[in-house]
């Protein structure tokens, strides 16, 4: 058990440390992958908590998401590699205080409350149980997630893609007129009426 505690301590420290580094490094690539390391540490803690599937899947999903995060960070941040050290924050003290108070309050709540004690049996087939749950009782959650993801996919494409239905989105994307040379078909924007 000692080894397990030590592993937990090391992983927890690295999760918090890399999480903190996210807001302290200059390079956006390092920030993204620092966050990824935080997720990986949390995923490994989950392995220690007898959640083999969720733990490894967290690593898997977050590696992909943080890769995409890095692409966008570099794409939209000025000085993405941090060649000039920078400090782009506002209401810094307020934010730091809020963060710390949240941490303190949650910690006190954790220490004061009577936590439930019903540990998971290490021999329990947890992946199998999850599958049964997914196809049985929680079938609706599962299918709703499908619909949500579909909505997300369509939404991202609409928002991010330049080609609108009738041409580039940033140039008005007006539908063709119904009569030659007439007004564009469809609803007229309010401020042009």
């Amino acid at each position, binding site marked *: 058990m000692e080894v397990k505690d030590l592993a937990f301590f090391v992983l927890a420290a690295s999760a918090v440390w890399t999480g903190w580094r996210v807001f302290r490094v200059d390079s956006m690539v390092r920030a993204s992958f620092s966050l990824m390391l935080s997720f990986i540490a949390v995923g490994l803690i989950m392995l220690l908590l007898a959640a083999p599937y969720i733990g490894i899947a967290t690593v898997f999903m977050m590696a992909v998401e943080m890769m995409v995060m890095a692409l966008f960070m570099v794409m939209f941040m000025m000085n993405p590699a941090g*060649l*000039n050290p920078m400090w782009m924050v506002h209401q810094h003290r307020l934010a730091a205080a809020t963060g710390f108070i949240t941490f303190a309050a949650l910690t006190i709540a954790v220490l004061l409350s009577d936590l439930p004690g019903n540990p998971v049996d290490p021999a329990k087939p947890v992946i199998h149980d999850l599958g049964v749950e997914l196809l049985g009782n929680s079938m609706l959650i599962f299918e709703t997630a499908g619909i949500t993801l579909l909505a997300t996919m369509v939404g991202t494409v609409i928002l991010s893609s330049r080609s609108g239905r009738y041409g580039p989105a940033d140039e008005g994307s007006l539908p063709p007129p119904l009569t030659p040379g007439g007004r564009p078909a469809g609803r007229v924007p309010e401020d042009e009426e």
Partner: protein
Amino acid sequence: MAVSGLARLATSAPAAIYPVVGKDGLAAVEDLSLHPAVSLQPTPRHASVLLVSGEIRRGDHPALRRLHDQLPHPRATLWWRTTPAPGFPQAENVEGDVARAVELVWRQLMTGERRSEDNLLPDEPPAAWRGKGDHGQGGEGMMGGKPYGRPMAMTDEDQRDGLALDAYTACFGPFLSVLPPGLLLELTLQGDVVQSAKVLRAPFAQAVADEPLRRVARLLRPLGLAGAAERFQRTAAAQTGDLKILDRALRWSGALHAIPPGLGEIAGEDIRASLRRWWEQAQGIASPASLGDGRLVDLLPGLEWSEAILVANSFEYDRLLRLCPPDREDDGDQEDCS
């Protein structure tokens, strides 16, 4: 001790060459690449010997110096089919069997008999930055100044999707291994899409290097078919060989399908059609030469990097020279590149 043992083993590896090809030097370098004792490298970082083959322009000397300095130690320079230009003190001229000369130099470098060449350029950063700026990194504010000696790229309009992100403008060449030798292009890239292109210097004329088989080989290399390309070159160099094997390699590799249709189209002939035509010519099927002319700089904008490289490698040399009239008014810019 261990390192000297490694070095001894390494002497028997093929000599790593970065070729700098000048006027009429291409065919000789391509034939040299078939020799088992040498291996041509796409970047100076992988090479030990800088091999200058054929005469190069005076204007290209600064570029040559920079390439020389980009080789890791131990390194050496050999001049072949031309005499060393002034200003290259440690250069050595080769006559006769170049492969042996390269091998010898290579072995001497590895065993330490030959001293590695010193830098030709002064050991200075592109702009003085140490100790300047807000954090001693040479920059100012968020994007300003010259952090670590260079400014940062700035935003510019984009042709394709209207996201004005950073435009990377740089001179590519004159000895970039994926471009025809001597061609100096100023490209503005957004991501890997060419926004604008300028020819600053035309490629070198190559009198003898233009058999159809060699052209096919040059187009196969950027498609990742180094082996097949070498076989085409070998057949071209030997003037004889089994064309059936080549035909199979070409068809099975899917090279024709890997080239997007309509790419690099001049007068109705795109790269696919050129490749087909060259292959027919190589097989002895009469095929009319393409007469269409245009400008390389009009073909490149809007292309992705891989497509632009294909386009640049898809012309006969005499035709390529006609397609690359240097933009005269930009003479001033040439200084920026070297």
